[in-house]
Structure formats: structure tokens, C-alpha cells
């Protein structure tokens, strides 16, 4: 029995153990050097990542409030990978930071929240996980302690999150009122699609949409992304979003499957608006972090298209895309973090002539942008391709054509950045930056991911084989 708790909750236990270990080091008497700590923590996180592949079992705990399947374990592995990469790219920023340990404690708490959230089989556990993965994030957004923008980002994030949580909870309470249960399975048995239930669904949908930045619930995104430190922005835009999308997908596919015809149309409208607004705003950004914020909003629109497939291919294509998105976005953020930590520059015009001084970083950034834009033969192309294929299965060609056209429009703004890096002249380009070992490792992993994920079809097939409707 105890064994079951140990093994099924394996991922969570490891995170908790690391959190406590860091806590003890923090309150302990010895002052460690930042460098030592960073290397130690990264080794722990690597161990955590590798442990995720070992001894994976399926099962239920706490009367089905917590459940674990091979797909969920895969999702956790993806999140672990993401956290490891974020930690690696945060190195140049954290090296001088006084509150390094708190950073990791908060970061891992949110990861713990995400794990509970995606494993949840019950609205209560889900809500707890969601909050645990959000509130420490607000503190993290404030981690550039001497920057006003950073505090502003934190304030906006916490207030907006509180608002969206309230809406979500309202939806949950209506749902409880109409179905008499909080368990996902029970609820799905009692959803008939009457108006009250649809309203409850819309409220819950709004809560989700807030987290994954779907227009018009996205407005916090740009401000928070711009103000927060670059690694935190990376974390917010990749890990946090990926985790919410995982649970969003499974809630849509299981709990609300009886009203699939209704939500299909809602997702359709939201996706169109999201892609359009995301692209429109991304066109006119000059701050790179803000630029990536809007471009990631447009990406979510594409994900919604794949998700609308309501098929195994839908699940597989979304997870596959998120994996590639993780590599591409973290590669871009890796470069941005390094440059902003060393040279304190973040705008696109600062990057003019970047190739002259930093060829390696330029290539990493360019390939990342190509992958985000979906240019073959980068993995991003295959990701988008499968999303569109999954969406096309439903036969809504307006949506597919719209997405394809917008994919081309998005080339324009991604290439604008690439052009600045490679072609635009600049008298004072960013100086040559020496790349520390850890971020370099992250960039190489991301590069490999962006290039190889597309070519090794067994990755997609593996995800496909784990996916269940």
C-alpha cells in the first residue's frame, strides 16, 4: 500500500525532496557559492529528468482523485525536460543573484503544482494544483528585485490570476450544482448540455483560456512577459502553458465530451481571433520578449486547431507540437537571457548585426525562429503540419486555410528578426559574448530537438501510441 503511494507519486516525491533539500541548505549555516549551488541543482534536475523514465506504472490513488497513465507520465517527462532546460539557460542571470535558492524553491513548487494538476481526476485536486502552479509564479515574476517593471509584472499577474481563478471557481460551483459531483468521471456522466451547464463550461473555459493566453483573455501576457526576468518569461510561456494545455486537452476530451459540438464552435471562434490578434500585435513589437509573447499567443491559436480534431491524432499532434515548441522557444529564450544578462539589451533593433559578433548565438536564434515559424526542415514545420492535419480531419477547411495563410503571415515577422540579425548593418553591434557551459548545453539540446524531432518519426509514433481518447 505504502509502496503504491511511493511509486505512483514518484515524480512528486522527487520534487518535494529536492525542495526540502534546498530549504535546508538555505536555512543551514554554511554559505555556498552560487556557482557550486547552480551546478549541484542542475545535476539534481538532470537526475529528476532521468528518473522520470524509470519505473513508470499506471494507477489511481485517493479514490480516483489522482491518476497516472503512461501519457501523463510522458507529459511529466516533457515538463521535467522543460524545467531542466530553463534552469540551464537561467545560469547567466542567476550567477550573480542573491536569492538563488528561493528561485528554485518557488520554481519547483510550481512544477509540483503542475504535476498534481495534470494527474488530477477531480476538480478539487485540479484547482489546488492550478493555484500551486500560479501563485509562486507571481513571486518569480518579481525576481528582478531592483526593477520596477518586474514588480509591476508580478502585481499584474497575481491580480489577473486571482480574477480568472474566481471566474473558474464560479464555473466549478455551477457545475457541481448541476451534476452533484467533483469527480471528472461523474461529471462527464451528468453533462447533458443544458444552458446552465454550458455557462459553467464557458466560465471554466475562460479560466483555461486565461492561462494559455487565448484572446481576449490574453491581455496580461505581454506586460508580464516583458517585465518578468527572461528565464521566468521562458518558464511562463513554455512550461506553464504546456502544463495547462495538457490538462485542458484532457478535460475537454473527457469531461466535456458530450457537448463537443458546442465547444468545437467556441474553440473555432477563439482560435481564429487568437491567431489574428496574436499576429497583428507581433508585427509591431520591438521588444524581443514582448514579440515572443505575442507570437506565442498566435501559436496557441494553432494548437487549438489541432485540439479541435477530437481524435487520437488530435492528442498526439498537440503533445508533439508542444514538445517542439518547448525546444524552439527555450532556444530563443536561452539566447535572449544570455544577451540581456551580459549586455542588458532586449530590443530587436539592438540585435542588428548580431551575426558579425556572435555567429553561434545568431544561428541558434535563427533556427529557433524558423522552427517557430514552421519552416521546413525544422521540426516546427512537422509540428504545425500535424496540427493542421489533425484539424483538417474534421473537414472545417475555412479554419485550415485561415491557419495556413496566417502561418505565412507569421513568416514575415519571424524573418524580420532574422533579417535584423544577419543582414542589417550596425555600427555598434552587441559585443561578442562568451557562452557559459550550462546555457550552451541547453542550446545544443534545443538545437538537436528542433532538428531531429522532425526527422525521427518514431517520436511522433511513440506519442501516438500512448494517446488514448
Amino acid at each position, binding site marked *: 500500500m505504502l509502496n503504491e503511494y511511493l511509486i505512483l507519486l514518484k515524480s512528486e516525491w522527487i520534487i518535494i525532496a529536492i525542495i526540502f533539500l534546498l530549504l535546508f541548505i538555505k536555512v543551514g549555516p554554511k554559505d555556498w557559492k552560487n556557482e557550486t549551488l547552480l551546478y549541484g541543482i542542475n545535476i539534481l534536475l538532470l537526475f529528476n529528468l532521468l528518473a522520470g523514465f524509470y519505473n513508470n506504472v499506471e494507477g489511481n490513488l485517493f479514490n480516483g482523485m489522482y491518476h497516472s497513465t503512461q501519457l501523463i507520465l510522458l507529459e511529466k517527462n516533457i515538463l521535467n525536460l522543460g524545467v531542466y532546460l530553463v534552469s540551464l539557460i537561467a545560469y547567466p542571470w542567476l550567477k550573480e543573484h542573491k536569492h538563488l535558492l528561493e528561485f528554485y524553491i518557488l520554481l519547483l513548487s510550481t512544477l509540483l503544482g503542475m504535476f498534481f494538476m495534470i494527474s488530477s481526476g477531480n476538480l478539487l485536486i485540479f484547482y489546488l494544483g492550478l493555484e500551486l502552479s500560479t501563485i509562486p509564479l507571481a513571486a518569480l515574476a518579481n525576481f528582478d528585485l531592483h526593477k520596477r517593471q518586474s514588480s509591476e509584472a508580478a502585481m*499584474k499577474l497575481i491580480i489577473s490570476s486571482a480574477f480568472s481563478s474566481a471566474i473558474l471557481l464560479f464555473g466549478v460551483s455551477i457545475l457541481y450544482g448541476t451534476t452533484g459531483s467533483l469527480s471528472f468521471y461523474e461529471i462527464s456522466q451528468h453533462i447533458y448540455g443544458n444552458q446552465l451547464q454550458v455557462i459553467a463550461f464557458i466560465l471554466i473555459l475562460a479560466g483555461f483560456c486565461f492561462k494559455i493566453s487565448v484572446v481576449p483573455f490574453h491581455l496580461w501576457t505581454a506586460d508580464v512577459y516583458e517585465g518578468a526576468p527572461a528565464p521566468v518569461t521562458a518558464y511562463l510561456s513554455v512550461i506553464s502553458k504546456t502544463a495547462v494545455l495538457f490538462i485542458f486537452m484532457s478535460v475537454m476530451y473527457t469531461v466535456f465530451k458530450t457537448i463537443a459540438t458546442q465547444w468545437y464552435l467556441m474553440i473555432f*471562434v477563439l482560435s481564429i481571433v487568437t491567431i489574428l490578434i496574436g499576429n497583428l500585435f507581433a*508585427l509591431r513589437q520591438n521588444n524581443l520578449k514582448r514579440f515572443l509573447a505575442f507570437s506565442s499567443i498566435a501559436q496557441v491559436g494553432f494548437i487549438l486547431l489541432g485540439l479541435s480534431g477530437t481524435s487520437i491524432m488530435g492528442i498526439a499532434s498537440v503533445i508533439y507540437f508542444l514538445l517542439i515548441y518547448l525546444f524552439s522557444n527555450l532556444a530563443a529564450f536561452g539566447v535572449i537571457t544570455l544577451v540581456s544578462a551580459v549586455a542588458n539589451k532586449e530590443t530587436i533593433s539592438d540585435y542588428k548585426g548580431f551575426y558579425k559578433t556572435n555567429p553561434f548565438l545568431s544561428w541558434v536564434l535563427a533556427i529557433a525562429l524558423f522552427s517557430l515559424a514552421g519552416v521546413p526542415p525544422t521540426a516546427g514545420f512537422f509540428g504545425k503540419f500535424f496540427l493542421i492535419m489533425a484539424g483538417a480531419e474534421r473537414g472545417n477547411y475555412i479554419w485550415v486555410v485561415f491557419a495556413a495563410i496566417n502561418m505565412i503571415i507569421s513568416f514575415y515577422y519571424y524573418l524580420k528578426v532574422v533579417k535584423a540579425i544577419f543582414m542589417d548593418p550596425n555600427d555598434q553591434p552587441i559585443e561578442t559574448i562568451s557562452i557559459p557551459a550550462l546555457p550552451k548545453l541547453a542550446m545544443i539540446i534545443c538545437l538537436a530537438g528542433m532538428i531531429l524531432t522532425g526527422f525521427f*518519426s518514431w517520436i511522433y509514433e511513440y506519442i501516438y501510441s500512448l494517446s488514448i481518447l
Partner: protein
Amino acid sequence: MSNPIFIALIPILPLTCFLLLGLFGRKHFSTTSGIIGTLSLFISTILSFATAYQYFFQTGKINGVYQKIIVFKYTWLEFAPNLSIDMGILLDPITVMMLVVVSFVSLMVHVFSLGYMKGETRFATYYAFLSLFTFSMLGLILSSNIFQIYLFWELVGVSSFLLIGFYFEKPSAVAASKKAFIVTRFADLGFLIGILILAFYAHTLDFGILIERLSVISSPYLTVINAASFLGMSALSWGLILVFIGGAGKSAMFPLHIWLPDAMEGPTPVSALIHAATMVVAGVFLVARLFPIFALSDPGALQVVMYTGAFSAFFAAVIACTQTDIKRVLAYSTMSQIGYMMFALGVSKYSGEEGLGYMGSMFHLFTHAFFKSLLFLGAGSVIHFVHSNEMKDMGGLRKLMPITHISFLIACLAIAGIPPFAGFFSKEEILMAAFESNRLIYVVALITSGLTAFYMFRLYYSIFWSKDASVKNHHGEGTISMKIPLILLAILAIGSGLVPIASFVTADGLPITSHVPISFSIVPVSLALIGILLATRLFKNSNDLPVRISQQMGGLYTAASRKFYIDEVYLFVTKKILFNLIGKPAAWFDKHIVDGLMNLLANSTAKVSELIKGFQSGKVQDYALYFFGGIASLIILFIYLWQ
């Protein structure tokens, strides 16, 4: 040796070499890159020969029939359980034969270039490109999947673009590489659409299954694709003809040949590689690969192949008689010889004795590869010597360049079809096949073969005889690395005709016994001899006879020397018709409507951005308002309006 790794190494070695030289060549291997490239290709060549030996004599034959063997297959992209893009290696007689030809000729070119390109500043880049090209070409012939062949097909196009435009300081080279790329790209579009049509109806991209489904008469797929029709032609015909258009583009068949003469701007060894033995025969290879479908299911499409080939053969031979740039003569002669291969496929049937045309075509492909690359390399060595492409700058070189002279003569005799040189044997098979199935084609082929002998010897005399050598200050005939390939290829230009291709490479895998009676050879050989004699009379010693004749021929000569104004027709069609009738209105439309729309769009985007900037006010209370607004509109939209 049946180990797939060894076979996979054949294309992988040049690829590795390309990556190595492309990435690090200029820094680390600026002088040794030639040796590295040549060595790696040498290994590939040995592996190719070993594979050929293995296939033809040990593993390939089952019950006396050569089989298609899938050496390995890797599913790359799976669309549906029965439709996937695979990466694989397919061995069958034509693949194995091409493997030997491509790797060997490429090796010769690698060796030749060691001397020819010596001292180039971008020596390493040159070898990197050569390796890339060889990799793509080997990949193309080994493909087991029609989509895979398309990928390599495009890669071949890209790498030949790089090689033709190698002297990128020369505007004409840049223009030529662009022309070659664009013309073949248009043809490739046809190829792609053809692939899609065939794959759509056959539900597969795999060659083996595709051929089986579309060539067996009782196959349900064949019934469906034949029943579907568009503009009076069945979907099968459309698919095959579009695929053939792709092949015609790469193989420079009329009217898609216009890029080939211009492509001579590239380094001469490159022409020997690309425009003699490898890329230009890709079209023939493609038709031969899909031959069962052509022959068994759609003889109509095969007729298109036949007439296009025959016309191109004749047409190019006429033009070749008038060109003065020696490489252009060779370019047109290549086009003419490929026309031979194409119509030989066109007159062929699938099985038995009637499959003679197919066998002849492959035989000619095989022998032609050697003597044509020999001609190009010889021309290269001449150009290296006199620093000019024009005939008027040459003459009397036979004493100064003995090895080039002898080998060039051998190649000329081979291409003219004089026994016992290689070209004789393959040409006889083709003529025999044409004679038995279509007399008109036979006559055209005969005339062409006479013309071929004439223009080749015109070329030969203009270079090596004609007048006394005007070049005084010279630096020898060339390095040893330039001579060895000439000698080796000359041996093959004599001997390769004796290879019994008939018992190895046939359409149905069964050996056929070809017996061309000696009496049959009399007509073509005497025609060739007449051509040679005529050329001897006109060009051996300098006199004004050719000029007089050309004056008498007047318009015809001018027309031929201006390549029958095909380029002008293209210019007319593109500049005048397309530009004035379509371009100008389109430009007006573009400027006023599209640009206007775009400006409107840009302006309104800016305006909308300005407007919705209000959304992004930075105030959280506003954000909450819009958040709530979003929920409200969803509710209104989906609960009240929609239901």
C-alpha cells in the same frame, strides 16, 4: 556484402565528405580537399562495383529473373497506415547499372578536377559541391519510394545549380545557373503533380507496390485511375505524362532543353559529370523505372515519350552542326543522344524480344556515359590548354596534345557508331528496335546518326587539324591526374560495348538474346562513314568550303545556328505575350488593386493596432473588463444567438 550498411555507405560517404568539406574545407582542407573527396568517392565506387557483382551474379536472380530487392526501408513520415513516405534502398538491374556508371564517372571527374581546378581559390567548395551532387544523384537512383526520388531530384537540381554557377563572378554563369534551375523547376512542378495523381489513385508511394497496382491488368486501382478522366485523357495518362515532363526537364528534351547549352558556363569537368552521364539521364532513368506502367497500361503516354525523344534527337543534331563553341556542340549532342534513349524506350514493349528498345536504351545510357564524359573531359583539357571555348581559337592541336587527341578520336568514333567502338553496339540495338516497331522513327534515327558522325568529326577536325597550331606558349597537356581519366574512359569507350547488357538489364528481368544481323548494320555504318568523310572534306584542312556552303544554305543555316530561334520564341512568349497581355494588366492590377489593398491593409493594420493598443492599456482593471467582456460575448454568441 549483402549487408545493407555497405550499400548505404555508397551515398553516405559523399554526403559525409560534403559536410566535412563544406563546413571545414576552406579553413582546414584548402589543399587536401581534392584528395579527400576523391578517396571517399573511390571507396564508394569500389562498393558500387562490389554491389553490382553481388547483385548480378549472386543475389539478384531468382529463378532466372532479376528481382527488385528492397535492401532496407525506414518509414519516415506516416500519413495513414498504408500511405507513408519511406527512405529506402531499392536494387534492381537499372539501379545497379546506374550505380556503377554514376560512381565511376564521378570518380573520373574527381580525379580530372584535381589538375583542372588546381589553384582555384574555392577549391574546397568545389569539391564539397561535387560531393553533394554525387550524393544526391546516388540517392536518386537508389530511391525505393517515388517521393524519396522527388526529394533527391530536387537536391540534384540544387547542387547542379551550385556547380553551374560556380564561377559566380561571371554574370553569364549566374544567369545560366538560374536558367537551368528555373526551367527544371517548372518541369519538376509537373513531376510533383504527376506523383500526387499516381499516389492518390494507387494509395501508395512505394515504387514496387505502385508499379504492381498500376500495371497488372486486373488491378482494381488501375480500373479506377483509367476511369477517372480530365479533358479527355485518363488520370493515368495525365499522371504519367506529367511525370515524363519532369523527366524531360532534367533530360533536356524539346522544348525544355533551353537550359542545357547555357549550363556549359560551369567548369568543364562539371559538365562532364552533370551533363553527360548523370543528371541529364535522370529523366530516362525515371521513365525506365516506371516503364511497366507505361508499357503495360498506357501505350499512349509511351508514344508521347517516343515522339518527343525522336524529335529532340534530330533537332539537336541539326543545331549541333552549326555551333562554334565546342562545349555547346557537346551539349546539343548530349541532348540528341538522350533523345535516342527516350525514343528507344518509346518504341519498346514490356517483355521478351519486343523489349529490345528498353534494353537498347539502357545499353546506350551505359556506353554513352563513358564516351560522352570522355568528350567533355577532353574538351576540358583542350580549353585548359588554349583558354577558349571557340573553335576558331583552336586547330592543329594533335601534336601538342597527343593523349587528348587519341582519346577524343576514340570517343568521336564511339559516338558516331563505328564498329567496334562502344556506341556502335548500343546504337544498333536501338535502331533495330525502332526498325521493328516504327519505320518513321527508324528513318529519323538513321538521319540523326549520320548527322551525329558529321558534327562530331567537324568538332574533331576543328580542334585537332584544320590549321597549324596558333598556340605557342603552352604549359604542357595537363597534369597526370588529367590524363589518367582520359585513358581509362577511352578504354571504356572501346570496351564497354562488349558488356552483355542484354542478359542483365531488361524490362522484365529476363535476359534476352539480341541478334542484330550484320546486314542490318550496313546502312547506319555507311551513313556514319559518309558523315565522317563529308566532315573530313570540309574541315580537315582550312578552306572556304564550309563558309560557301553555309551561305548557300542561307536561312536554314542561320536558323539552325540560332538554335531555331527557340530562345527567341521563349523570349517572345514571355516578354511580349506574357508581359503585355498578362503582365501589364497584372501589373496594373497589382499596383492599383493589390498594392492598394495591401496599403489599405497595412494602413488599417496600423490603425487597428493603434486602436487595439487601447486594449493593451497596461491597466489591470481594463484587462479584467475585457476578460469579462469575452465571457459575456461567448455566452451571448453560443447560448442565445446560436441555439
